[in-house]
């Protein structure tokens, strides 16, 4: 193989340098584009994370209100199950009446209309002192179930002096439907 002349060597050297510069520029541009894309994606993620953080922060107040309401009603909606809530609520009402000092009369349960956002209604009669009656009315709100007294009738008990008869109609709210309903007028 013949020896390359100085001119040829110089030409080859220059060509090598040119190719190296081209490759470096081309490769560098590709790498830069790749990195830039990664960076843009990352910035987008950061923005998303910041938005989410703000959104979560806005819920702090709501959480506090929910907590306070749950404590005041002694009620956790997440723990209620539709299948057992009527039975449990009925038992809790009767227990509250008995523990208030009332003598229970007839108790009637009837399923509510599905369109009325109620699960069932319970009618019962009880006899007892005025204090016991007031106590029951007060306790029903905090017995741990979504109960609303639909109607109350207080009648004198002529046969038993000092006693009154209380007739209550209580509805058990369908929490699955009620959760998305607006606030009704009471």
């Amino acid at each position, binding site marked *: 193989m013949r020896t390359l002349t100085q001119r040829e060597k110089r030409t080859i050297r220059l060509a090598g340098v040119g190719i190296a510069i081209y490759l470096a520029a081309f490769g560098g541009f590709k790498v830069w584009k790749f990195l830039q894309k990664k*960076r843009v994606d990352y910035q987008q993620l950061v923005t998303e*994370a910041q938005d989410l953080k703000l959104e979560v922060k806005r819920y702090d107040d*709501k959480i506090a209100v929910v907590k306070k*309401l749950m404590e005041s009603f002694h009620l956790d*909606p997440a723990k209620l199950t539709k299948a057992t809530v009527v039975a449990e609520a009925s038992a809790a009402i009767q227990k509250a009446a008995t523990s208030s000092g009332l003598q229970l009369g007839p108790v009637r349960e009837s399923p509510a209309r599905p369109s009325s956002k109620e699960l069932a209604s319970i009618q019962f009669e009880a006899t007892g002192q005025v204090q016991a009656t007031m106590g029951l009315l007060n306790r029903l709100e905090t017995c741990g179930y979504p109960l609303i007294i639909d*109607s109350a009738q207080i*009648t004198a008990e002529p046969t038993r002096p*000092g006693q009154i*008869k209380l007739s209550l109609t209580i509805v058990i709210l369908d929490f699955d439907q009620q959760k998305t309903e607006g606030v009704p007028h009471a």
Partner: protein
Amino acid sequence: MKEIAFMNPSPVYLEFSQASLQALKDNDGLALPLERGANGRLTAGGKEKLISGLQKFLDRKGWQPRARAFCAIGANGVSLRRLTLPASTKEEFQRLLRLQIENEFPLPPDELAWGWHRLGPNGAANKQEVLVAAVRKEVVEEYANVLRACGLTPVFTLAALVRSSLCPQPIDSGAMLDTGDSHAELAMFDNGLPTAVRILSLSAESSVADATVKALGANWSGRHIFLTGANDEIAAQLATRMGIGILCEPLKIESGVGRSAAILGLKKSVEQNGGSPPLVLEVKAKQTGGSFNLSQPHVKKWAVAAAALLCALLVLPFAEALLLKPFLAKKLTRLKAEKGRLATIDRELGFLQSLKQSQPPYLDALYVFAKSAPQGARIEQLTMNRRGEISLRGSMRDATQVTDFRTKLIGSGFLANVAVEEQAPTPDRQKVNVRMSAQWKPVEARAGLAIGPTAEEIEKSKTNKLAQAGGAMLPGGMPPSMMPPIMMPGQMTPPQPARK
């Protein structure tokens, strides 16, 4: 940029001789031995000691700018030439001077540390004469590196030349002899200009006088020899050897550490010459002015640091994206999955608020009725529903009581549409049977009402309770004493309104 005067450190004057380094800064002096190898260069250990000793002596603060170090080096290895150059421009002069040096000296200018001093025209109008001193570049660079490591900016010159500034008058035609322990340096002057420098080796066989006479030669025409580092005896010996007509004069100089003839001469020369010695030996790095040499360790270090910082500046934003993106994406996915809980919170909040506002105010209504009922009234039946419809059946003493009762109910602000549906006297005309209806106001209208016993009433009821030991207690603490004068069904007492 002009540096603030008080920040400028004082210049340092140094003399590098074969065996020692002497330094003078303000009034403080220093003398350090030089450890040289067989090739005459400073040893690595010797350099470290030298740097350490000098740094301690200089006590330079980190914030201070570099001080100038004027260094006088010995004549060992130094060549002195007088060159004649054609008149030229400044740029041309430098090029011509380099060509002349290349021609006159055994080494090319790039391998020399050299300096020049213009001597003036040599008679011809188109010629000029310069004095050039040169020494191997390595010699000066070695010293320069040591001084730079100590935070100094070195300026080199020849010790043999600067000593002459100690002479009381300029040397017209004579010599300057500096004697040391093992050698002496002789600088010869002709017409006030240095012509040659010599190193004289001293030994037991060869005295200073002998060596000087030999070095000057028989044809030397000078008339004055100034001596430094020599005593009167040596001066006398030299005068005797040189013969009549040659004046040998020892110079009296300040004594002390760091106060050699070269240092004191250098200081005087710098002060007289406007802050620079007359002949400065420059290495290539100095010749290029503002540029720097990457091979120098400190320059290299800063260059590497700057490059690393630049790389970090460019790479960090991308590195952050590459490294943290997977973690952030994972976390975000988890948060988005948990975002469903926010909807649950919304639903639960809506439900609980709805439940709270749906609770009918039965106890409040009972309290209002009990509070408004007149003395002797009897309620047979009271019916309420969650829509707020109330109906009442009972009896009262007379029609006036019925009117009062209704007025009080309306005045409570709790009820609207209070109507007496039927009012009829009993057959014995002792009482009036009444049937009334009412409607409680919407929740917004009731919001501002204060329904329920006041604190005073509660306190009073407690007192009464104690007095009537065993008396009935209403639920929620409402005592019987608070019961208005009404006979509710079964002697109903006023209720305690639900208070949330």
